[in-house]
């Protein structure tokens, strides 16, 4: 492979004999990546489309006798219930994204650009909701704020207040979505703010602009790609989430597209063709958003990491820093402390019937029974081991593939890179429940015994989260000025050498962040696991859903706590490892440049 990779190096800067050789290598490289994407993305999506255009199961019916028709689409488009679910989805996700941007951007600015105390704690808090699977978030908030029996409402009743919170509502879902998807915005914008040269802000201030004006007219516009990427990603990820609307929207009779699709797959008999047609509708919405983002960003330069040294700037807030700290603590309380307490109560309490406040503190009602039952089930430990294994495989292989794709798309001029970009973005638009069936249909017949192994799950996760990983990586890549690579090429380094000594060290925090993100997403992923797991490859998300569907909130909460603690520990370890790995690289980026 090194031959063809070397052939890609600096195609515009060096003209030597062997140009044809390089051209062939470039074709081979694109061809290989396209083949991988064809297997991971195109083939399953084609199977899905086929499913939407027929009423057949492609594996059961084979390729003969297909009666292609657009009836499913016309039925779906004419169905007022689909219109309602679509409208609800767009409303919930737009509202949720707005809340997420407000929270995520505020905290990334507070952490990176102000002298607020306890910034480490705030940074960690800003990321914590990402560890929580949506189903767990939904369950925790149902326990906290259901209109009749929510703990917050029980407290308010005890205090004699007549006002009640109703999380089984559109507003409730929007706020919960916003809180749990703010980390997407935080991740993108904090890294962009950190990597931004403050000279531009200083110039603005020297020209007489105040702090707020500088923030609004210089800082935020400069990190616009990060804000837009984070916004788009959080919006489309919310569109595909099942857990939160399933728990909070169902009692309030607020259907969204994912809960509608889940119903179609769970009914007896299931209506997969209709589910596939609804998914195509979701793909169209998402496709339009991706196009919008690219159109907005096209033709502009957002390069802010160049070969010049700088120091990150910190705004002195004076007494206002306690306000920002207070906001962060409030966020910590609402997003982390309260839901965790709710899960703790549910996990240790025999039954979640709490008549009044004194009943909540009745010690006789608490015990370890749910944990004992959980660990008496051999599937629990097996699912934990399987989940860790599949998460690791997905993070490593998916991270490498995403880097290869991201670099090829954004930093080379090889043929087919536009096609690579479009194809690798497609999976973001398809909800996991439906793509899960598509993967099953597409891959079950493959020779080599892939089905029934942990690898089929890992492949599905890699394919499904390719857009998220590439987006996370490309933001950091877009910010690395090409002059740094050009300098390396001029000094005689090949592509691999440049990658190793320039690009990787500069992008390392982004690569590690992307791999960590992929690990978390893989561990939480439910939809595509549902159809691909077998008795030997049970994963935590599936077992959690089993417990939830089994109607035992206590054991569901106990398992949620186990999962959350496990994820927290692993991510902290990964964070520590990446910090020590990234430290020398940080020096190399802006300060020593």
């Amino acid at each position: 492979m090194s031959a063809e990779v070397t052939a890609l190096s600096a195609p515009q800067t060096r003209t030597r004999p062997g140009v044809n050789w390089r051209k062939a290598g470039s074709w081979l490289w694109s061809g290989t990546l396209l083949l991988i994407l064809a297997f991971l993305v195109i083939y399953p999506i084609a199977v899905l489309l086929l499913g939407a255009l027929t009423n057949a199961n492609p594996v059961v019916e084979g390729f003969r006798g297909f009666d292609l028709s657009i009836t499913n689409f016309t039925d779906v488009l004419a169905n007022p219930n689909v219109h309602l679910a679509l409208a609800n989805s767009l409303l919930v996700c737009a509202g949720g994204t707005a809340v997420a941007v407000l929270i995520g951007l505020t905290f990334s600015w507070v952490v990176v650009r102000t002298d607020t105390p306890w910034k480490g704690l705030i940074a960690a808090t800003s990321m914590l909701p990402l560890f929580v699977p949506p189903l767990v978030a939904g369950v925790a908030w149902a326990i906290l704020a259901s209109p009749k029996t929510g703990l917050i409402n029980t407290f308010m009743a005890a205090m004699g207040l007549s006002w009640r919170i109703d999380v089984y509502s559109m507003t409730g879902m929007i706020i919960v979505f916003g809180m749990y998807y703010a980390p997407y915005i935080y991740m993108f914008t904090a890294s962009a703010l950190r990597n931004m040269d403050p000279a531009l802000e200083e110039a603005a201030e020297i020209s007489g602009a105040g702090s707020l004006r500088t923030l609004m007219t210089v800082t935020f516009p400069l990190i616009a790609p990060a804000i837009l990427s984070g916004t788009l990603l959080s919006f489309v990820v919310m569109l595909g989430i099942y857990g939160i609307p399933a728990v909070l929207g169902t009692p309030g009779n607020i259907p969204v597209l994912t809960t509608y699709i889940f119903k179609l797959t769970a009914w007896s008999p299931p209506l997969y063709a209709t589910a596939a047609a609804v998914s195509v509708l979701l793909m169209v919405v998402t496709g339009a958003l991706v196009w919008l983002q690219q159109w907005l960003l096209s033709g502009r330069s957002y390069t802010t990491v160049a070969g010049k040294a700088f120091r990150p700037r910190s705004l002195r807030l004076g007494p206002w820093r306690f306000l920002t700290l207070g906001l962060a603590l409030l966020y910590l309380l609402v997003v982390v402390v309260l839901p965790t307490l709710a899960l703790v109560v549910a996990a240790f309490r025999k039954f979640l019937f709490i008549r009044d406040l004194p009943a909540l503190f009745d010690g006789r009602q608490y015990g370890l029974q749910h944990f004992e039952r959980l660990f008496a089930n051999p599937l629990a430990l097996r699912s934990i081991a399987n989940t860790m294994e599949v998460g690791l495989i997905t993070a490593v292989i998916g991270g490498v593939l995403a880097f290869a794709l991201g670099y090829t798309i954004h930093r080379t001029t090889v043929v087919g890179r536009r096609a690579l970009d479009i194809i690798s973005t497609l999976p973001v638009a398809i909800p996991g429940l439906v793509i899960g069936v598509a993967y099953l249909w597409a891959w079950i017949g493959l020779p080599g015994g892939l089905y029934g192994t942990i690898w089929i799950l890992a492949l599905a996760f890699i394919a499904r989260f390719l857009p998220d990983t590439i987006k996370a990586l490309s933001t950091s890549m877009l910010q690395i000025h090409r002059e740094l690579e050009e300098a390396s090429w001029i000094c005689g380094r090949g592509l691999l050498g440049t990658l190793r000594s320039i690009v990787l060290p500069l992008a390392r925090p982004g690569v590690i962040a992307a791999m960590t993100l992929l690990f978390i997403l893989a561990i939480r992923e439910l939809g595509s696991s549902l159809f691909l797991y077998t008795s030997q490859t049970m994963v935590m998300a599936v077992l959690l859903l089993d417990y939830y569907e089994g109607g035992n909130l206590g054991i569901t909460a106990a398992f949620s706590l186990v999962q959350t603690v496990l994820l927290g520990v692993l991510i902290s370890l990964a964070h520590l490892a990446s910090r020590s790995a990234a430290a020398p690289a940080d020096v190399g980026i802006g300060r020593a440049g």
Partner: protein
Amino acid sequence: MAPLGMFRHLAKAAVAFTVAVSAATGAAQAQEPNFGPPELIEAARKEGRMVFYTAGFTEVEQEVIAAFNKRFPFVKVEMVRASGGQLITRIKTEAAAGKLIADVIDHSDRGLMLEMADLFQDYAPPNAADYLPDSHPSPKIWPRITLGWVIAYNDALVKDPPKTWMDLTKPEYGNAQIGQVIAPSGGTTWTRTMFERQVLGEDYWQKQAATKPRLYPSGAPLADALVRGEVTIAPSLYNIVYSKKRDGAPIGIVFPPEGIPVNPYADAIPKTAANPNAAKLFLNWCLSEEGQAFMIKQFGNLTSLKKPPILPEGFDPKVAKVWLPEFSQYEKLRNTWVEDWNKIYGYRQ
């Protein structure tokens, strides 16, 4: 309206069940249980494992497996659990690709299982003759589980509970106090809704829907909501609420006198089973008096055995008549009636 012939059939089935339940003495028979010939047990020992596909609940099935393993510790049972529709899709796809992993398939929907009867091998438990013929639609398919519907309520919050199915139409139980599982959720709920229309009256759904019940996708989350007090009354599967009540949850249970709609599950062994002997031994045990008695006592199941080994706690066959749908009607009426139900209850489909 149902034709007269169908009612005769229904009445016959109901009588058969009532007689069967009435004949129960509450004590298991004394004779040595028969789980199959020694060669089968030896062959199962050699296989040592089997894969069990189920639409039941994880926790419950883990307990069943543990009880089976007390008797036969040498067979490791590996479980794959999915909801009804998802399980069917998986089975059909795996079978078509020649990769059906299951050794035993357990599903709540007899109709969907019958559609796949060609996939299954001939199998009958040693006590096949003890089972009600109407409880299984094919000689290859057997009712490992039989579940019945009751009215459950939160006894810490409801002081004047409903006593009959008709009580659930009373305005005093309105304003979202009642929770209902949606009719399209699967075969078990379809059985209950069919009972409501055929036995309680053509206009029962309209009257009941007028109380504005809160709708739930399946029985288990509804039972949880009942315990928490989110809703206070719910038609519920006895086995779901029984175990919660047994563990101390604030739940009261009523066996309505108009009838207990029951849904026998459908269990079969695929022709492709890699561990057919272990599969047979597992089903033989589940379908035996010992297995059925365990599930009745532990989970509040009913049984499709002509002579139940024991009765579920609180169940008095003199008061509560068991109602089993006539199978051809169960199949024929389903789509149109479920559509009617969705419209009447304002369930968006």
